[in-house]
């Protein structure tokens, strides 16, 4: 009996986790979309005609069961990478992604060399 109860709770908890995974929060998506006709506003913040239409389209796509990634992919196909605030990793913007790590490494090396030099003295 105990085993059955444990199994029951296990099944329920996995079901809850899997449904949560499929839920897309429309506000999260809209906050990551740029209003193309506004000055520095996201679609979530804007009441422009363009943003209103994008909100309707995103809602439709969520209702169709599309994931956040699929929605971004669709919009990027239509408006380019510029529509999302979080750019994807590719050859062109690789510097943007790798530069902070590069600075970290070079900075670390510089500090290491300077400290080493001080030790010699």
């Amino acid at each position, binding site marked *: 009996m105990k085993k059955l109860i444990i199994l029951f709770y296990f099944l329920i908890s996995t079901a809850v986790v899997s449904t949560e995974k499929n839920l897309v929060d429309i506000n999260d998506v809209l906050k990551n979309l740029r209003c193309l006709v506004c000055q520095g506003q996201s679609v979530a913040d804007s009441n422009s*005609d363009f943003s209103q239409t994008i909100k309707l389209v995103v809602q439709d796509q969520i209702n169709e069961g599309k994931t956040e990634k699929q929605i971004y992919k669709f919009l990027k196909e*239509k408006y380019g990478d510029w529509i999302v605030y979080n750019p994807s990793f590719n050859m062109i913007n690789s510097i943007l992604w790798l530069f902070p790590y590069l600075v970290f490494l*070079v900075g670390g090396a*510089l500090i290491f060399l300077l400290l080493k030099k001080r030790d010699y003295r």
Partner: protein
Amino acid sequence: MKIKLVKYIVVIFFLFVISVFFIGLKKDSIYNTQGLVGQKLTEIRIDHFSEKKIINDEDLKKSKFTLINFWASWCGPCREEHSFLIKLNEEKNLRLIGVNFKDKKNNALKFLNELGNPYDDLAKDELGKHSIGFGIYGIPESILINNNLIIIKKFVGPLNENDLNLIKETINSK
């Protein structure tokens, strides 16, 4: 030796930062849709303006070239470009499809009665949702595609004399 190395690294770092700023500040920051040229339109479904049918991919493959024009009766610049659309209607290689964008049917008909109807087919997009599939972010906008549904040119804003000549050149040279 090490001091020299550090100096070189610092100089290279500053040169890099300056070049990034130089390229970044010279780049045009105004959004344009030129990146979409060469892309293929897919899954097109727009409601016909007066009939109960849907204009889809197959309808757009009927002519060698198709110009899809997004317009509305409330849009001032659409009036400006209308005479050029009337001229384009005379081109044999080109099919003109008008998409009436977020408009009232009566107002749209009044607009066409007043200025003439240049379109071979007329569609409507009452909520503007279908236009997102074409990468539209304001009207008037026009998209020139070939019969493989590849975007050849995108015109943001009202068509002008130069655009008219460019379209004529494109459809008659290929």
